[in-house]
């Protein structure tokens, strides 16, 4: 099994499965916090996806996207926290 095949037949599918699990949690909730966590994890997994995909296609420039994701993902969590607290204070 070459690395390419390994990535193609193992890594990507498992990551895909992971995302499905996360999405299920996103849908189930029950609280908005759970959805926010799920959202955060989707992005994190997305970074993994991009890493694997960059190797798979031999395109290092895709890692730049991963970099952006890593940097910014966190902000939406911050915003949601901000929101939930504000709403609770109301």
């Amino acid at each position, binding site marked *: 099994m070459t690395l390419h095949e390994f990535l193609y037949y193992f890594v990507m599918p498992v990551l895909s499965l992971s995302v499905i699990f996360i999405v299920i949690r996103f849908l189930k909730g029950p609280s908005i916090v759970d959805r926010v966590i799920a959202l955060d994890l989707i992005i994190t997994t997305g970074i993994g996806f991009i890493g694997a995909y960059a190797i798979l296609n031999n395109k290092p420039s895709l890692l*730049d*996207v991963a970099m*952006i994701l890593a940097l910014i993902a966190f*902000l939406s969590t*911050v915003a949601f926290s*901000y929101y939930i607290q504000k709403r609770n204070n109301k």
Partner: protein
Amino acid sequence: MKTIILRTASTYLLPVLLLFSIFILLRGHYSPGGGFVGGLIASIAWVLHAFAKGLENTKGLIRIHPGFLMPVGLALAFLSGIAPIVAFDMPFMTGLWYPEHLPILGSLGSALFFDTGVYLVVVGVTLTIIFTITESA
């Protein structure tokens, strides 16, 4: 928000993110990135700072009103666009290039000034929007 952890983290994240945004801006001509994304990241850096430390602190740090960056950025882009007309009677936005290859930037040309204009505008816009809305929240 009243959390020391976020506040402290943001102190260190701010310079890193700003640095990163400039990095993204400068390399745009060669790799993914450019003025937009760069500007967005810079704004996000400040927004994060504002979330963590409060808007007043952030504004104090920036000193000027972020809205001021918009005309500055527009003017920069505009000037790099009309420079060819004024200087060489060439069409609007014709690329002007410094003949030598420069380190970091690669070729230096009017396109970079243009992209920097874009960067400034994006920062100005995003911050104006988010600061305004936070203030009136």
